[in-house]
């Protein structure tokens, strides 16, 4: 129940289920491109007098070379440290004083900055974002201090979180050469070694209008947004971009396993199969079939994981699956969970693998498909309730290179998936030779006990 400030929230690997076609009154997206290459996507949504503005950069941890892991995220923090005309802290102060929300996040494939404002204040967002797109100051003392903040963030999110720590090593084991082996926040030694010069080069390399997408959703007129954006972003010069060197993952030649021993109470099991995504699939229906498979296993309390493992055999206290079809590179289809008290990690692993085997052997039922479709259709409506989510979807799709409209026919594509296709992707991709397994094996937590009621004073030191 620890709640930290949301600045620089990391969206680690698994985002959101990609849900659907704008069916209910969602207005079309209007697209503009400035002469300097900045792409602008505007969706008008007039339900409330507010607007979300997001700037997406095509850079994230999967662009980073070894030794500089976490540089995209550290730079994201430093983007709040000022320019020649907007001193450090002023960005946040101005947005706050104008009633705005703001934040930024970094993932494998993107870095994004956003403000939510009453609609009349949109220009403030554009002015400040345009300024820091090209004029960031990276003072050595700010870099040193912010590296300390990010180190604390890493302690909070990873070092002291047994499952997050295991997940990080799980990813690093599953991939040999793919940059998805690197944590978004970076390895601690890299966070502490990245220099101001490194950051300056990273900023110069990736922060340019022709490497960015501006996404605006809310109570606005698209033409006015275009003009306002042109005024503030238009004068920025483009860069000559060098795309990141593509490093393909070496073919896996058999199952990989690790055990992570760390102080903890609850064992955990993680399974990951290498699968294609919308960006990497050679057969275009495969990612949709994998998404349906994900829904069959994990979509709601009626799904197989809940029905069979949590309620049926009760081998799991909790379990879930995840598939992110919008990853830029081949990704993992994961199954993970915690064994129920009295049950072992080995039992849970066996049960999870049995569910995968069942999908390879038997076609899913028409009832299960219908349920997945019902959930996708409903989610398509629910997600329109959030301006932020609408912007997020456009931004991710555009930034990973799929194009913002790639999922406009998502509902139809899901509806078209057949039971045979689900079995086909299970047989092709959810195989032992593509599997990585990580087991969290708890070590004793010395001194972990809470003071008992009434004895808290025993621990008082002043």
């Amino acid at each position, binding site marked *: *129940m*620890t709640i*930290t*400030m949301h*600045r620089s929230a990391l969206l680690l690997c698994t985002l959101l289920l990609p849900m659907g076609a704008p069916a*209910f009154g969602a207005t079309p997206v209007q697209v503009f491109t400035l002469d300097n290459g900045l792409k602008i996507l505007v969706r008008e949504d007039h*339900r*409330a*007098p*507010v607007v979300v503005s997001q700037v997406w950069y095509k850079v994230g941890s999967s662009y980073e070379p070894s030794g500089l892991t976490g540089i995209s995220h550290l730079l994201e923090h430093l983007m709040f440290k000022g320019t020649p005309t907007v001193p*450090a*802290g002023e960005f946040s102060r*101005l947005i*706050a*004083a104008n*009633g*705005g*929300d703001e934040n930024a996040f970094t993932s494998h494939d993107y870095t994004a900055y956003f403000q*939510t404002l*009453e609609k009349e*204040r949109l220009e403030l967002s554009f*002015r400040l974002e345009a300024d820091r797109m090209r004029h960031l100051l990276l003072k050595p003392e700010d870099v040193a201090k912010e590296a*300390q*903040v990010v180190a*604390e963030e890493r*302690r*909070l999110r*990873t*070092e*002291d*979180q047994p499952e997050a*720590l295991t997940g*990080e090593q799980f990813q690093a084991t599953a991939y040999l050469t793919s940059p998805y082996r690197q944590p978004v926040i970076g390895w*601690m030694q890299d966070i502490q070694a990245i220099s101001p010069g490194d950051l300056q080069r990273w900023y110069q390399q990736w922060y340019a209008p022709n490497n960015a997408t501006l996404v605006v959703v809310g109570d606005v007129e698209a033409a006015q947004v275009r003009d306002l954006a042109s005024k503030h972003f238009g004068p920025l010069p483009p860069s000559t971009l060098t795309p990141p060197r593509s490093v393909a993952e070496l073919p896996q030649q058999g199952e990989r396993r690790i055990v992570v*021993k760390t*102080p903890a109470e*609850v064992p955990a099991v993680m399974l990951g199969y290498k699968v294609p995504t919308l960006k990497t699939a050679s057969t275009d229906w495969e990612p949709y079939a994998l998404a349906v498979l994900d829904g069959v296993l994990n979509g*709601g*309390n*009626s799904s197989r994981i809940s029905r069979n493992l*949590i*309620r049926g055999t009760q081998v799991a206290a*909790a379990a879930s699956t995840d598939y992110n079809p919008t990853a830029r590179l081949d990704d993992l289809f994961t199954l993970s969970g*915690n064994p*129920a*008290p*009295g049950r072992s990690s080995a039992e849970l692993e066996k049960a999870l693998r049995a569910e995968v085997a069942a999908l390879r052997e038997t076609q899913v039922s028409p009832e299960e498909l*219908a*349920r997945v479709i*019902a959930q996708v259709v*409903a989610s398509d*409506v629910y997600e329109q*309730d*959030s*301006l932020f989510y609408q912007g997020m979807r456009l931004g991710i799709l555009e930034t990973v290179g799929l194009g913002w409209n790639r999922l406009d026919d998502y509902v139809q594509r899901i509806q078209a998936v057949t039971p045979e296709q689900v079995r086909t992707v299970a047989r092709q991709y959810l195989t032992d030779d593509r599997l990585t397994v990580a087991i969290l094996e708890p070590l004793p*937590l010395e*001194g*972990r006990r*809470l003071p008992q009621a009434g004895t*808290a004073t025993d621990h008082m030191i002043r």
Partner: protein
Amino acid sequence: MSIKFMRSGLLAAVLMLVSGLAAAVPDIQHWRSANGVAVYFIPTRELPMVDVQVLFSAGSFRDGSQPGLARLTCALLEEGAGDWSADVIADRFDQVGARFATSSRRDAAAVTLRSLSDPRYLQPAVETVARLLREPSFTPDAIERVRQQMLTALQERAQSPGAIAQDTFFKTLYGEHPYATPPDGTPASLNSIDRAAIVDFHRRHYSAANAVVALVGDLDRPAAEQLVNTLVGGLPPGEAVPPPPPVTPLAASRTVRVAYPSTQSHILVGQVGVKRADPDYYALYLGNHVLGGNGLVSQLAQEIREKRGLAYGAYSAFTPMREAGPFLINLQTRNDQVDTALSVTETTLRTFSTDGPPLQILQEARQNITGGFALDIASNSKLAGALAGIAFYGLPLDYLSSYIARMNAISPEQVRAAWRGHVQPERLLTVIVGGTATPATATPAAAPTTAPAGS
């Protein structure tokens, strides 16, 4: 456009916003169902969906001698009702694309439903919720299964220094008061709860007299009334349960340290705050926005994170409840920096309490609150959350429409007076979890930053 121009233009913009919003803030419709349940409804016609929440005075402060009873009871609602198994219930929701969840905290227990508004989907989903509330079966199998899940959740709290800090803080701050009860229970208590206790807890609390409904979505008034009747019309009248007893603040400062093998220490500093009905809450909320409630702009974040790089997060908050909830400052820092971080925190709080908020900063905090109000109600989901609070705590029906005017009416003197009346820096509870040796051999990634043991 220069920065200075932006700044001076603010006030005019805020005034414009106030007048512009008058039409945008939705009216809350209010009525009672035939069996007496208070209903709060905001129609939103843009999207074909409905969010509905039923809240019961059935939170964990009513656990009595069995911590975890309220949460266990609430979690079991979807695990069987009448002759429906948990599988049948899950199918009934998933088939129509509905999302159902239960939740239980110190004051309230709640069930929430999100559904498409098309009656073909909405009606079966609402009927399902109605039956879960009315006739949960509490089968022995389900009780045992959820008990094991809650025991696992307790273990997970025990491996989280932040959760340990929270539990220790509540336990120490509230002492004998029922707010001290951990909502997740304790292992001994969870293992001792039998079916009879659960059935009895449900019978006493899940009745019309203890329920309110918050409804937002694409319905006209007759359809909304019909939905509510289906949803809670079958609840027995029941008897209203008594409110929690008043809270006694700590008499003197105290510090509790819990050894834990983490690389960071979690630090909580606070005391008893206010209850939701306290008229001072708004002035305290505004004041706290300056101190630690407004992200990186706040004083605590400035002093701890921005100036010194001591923590990723540093914030403060009042959490008003039916009775006085906590006022809490929360941060985490490397073990060897605890004393520095604590000293900065205490100095910042003491200075704020003595001097009050600087006027310009107070005004900007107010602008953040009033200028951001449109954001707070910009979606069905946010409206539903706000409405649930209004419904459960019985806030006035003009709560939303008068919100900006209320915040604008608070004078700097009122903020200082409320702060003096409620916050005593000489009577603080400090909880520190962490600070023991880190087993670097077990976690190679942690090795480079391992802090010296203790501090």
